[in-house]
């Protein structure tokens, strides 16, 4: 998985609780992304980062926030989890310049009860 780890790999939580997912990379890539994957929807971009402290929204950003204080770490926070946020979350990374290939982590399976 291209030097990308995600933690936790599985999580069960209750509606209304905050949840933070972590993505860690060892590739020193500038760009990092958070996606969610749901049946029938494919991969949808939540937020992405183009550098330390530089982030922007994706197509499904409502209810999510992100932070990137170090090159290697990109955190995704659900401020108050809802059942609609039950999903599999993937982190991805890419280099700058030319090829825009994104490499994905192993995923975090989140269940919000």
């Amino acid at each position, binding site marked *: *998985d291209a030097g990308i780890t995600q933690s936790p790999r599985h999580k069960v939580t209750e509606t209304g609780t905050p949840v933070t997912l972590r993505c860690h990379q060892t590739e020193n890539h500038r*760009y990092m*992304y958070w996606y969610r994957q749901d049946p*029938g*929807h*494919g*991969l*949808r*971009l939540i937020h*992405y980062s*183009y550098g330390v402290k530089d982030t922007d929204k*994706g197509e499904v950003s409502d209810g999510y926030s992100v932070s990137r204080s170090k090159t290697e770490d990109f955190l995704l926070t659900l401020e108050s989890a809802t059942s609609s946020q039950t999903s599999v979350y*993937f982190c991805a990374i*890419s280099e*700058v310049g030319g*090829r*825009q*290939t*994104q*490499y*994905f*982590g*192993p*995923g975090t399976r989140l269940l919000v009860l």
Partner: protein
Amino acid sequence: GESVGLHLPTLSVQEGDNSIINCAYSNSASDYFIWYKQESGKGPQFIIDIRSNMDKRQGQRVTVLLNKTVKHLSLQIAATQPGDSAVYFCAENMSKRSNDYKLSFGAGTTVTVRA
């Protein structure tokens, strides 16, 4: 075996046959395309990519064809093996800015290889 369009999400193919997975993309300005393979319980894995200034690119047992006229992308897998059973996604770079690397993903095609 061959899948057609975005609305046939499954493809069953006999082991040893060639597979063709099709994808229609939406943005005529997209300049970069990728095929990913996702096995059950894992993250998407890069297979092959192609830029819009090319029509064809070959890898190991895989070939990607790009037809910009009809905005169509295909992935050909030669001599399909059981390990090729997975969901295959196409992705396009829809970004308008030159330094923006966002990708848009298709819904995916599930390939099942019959022994």
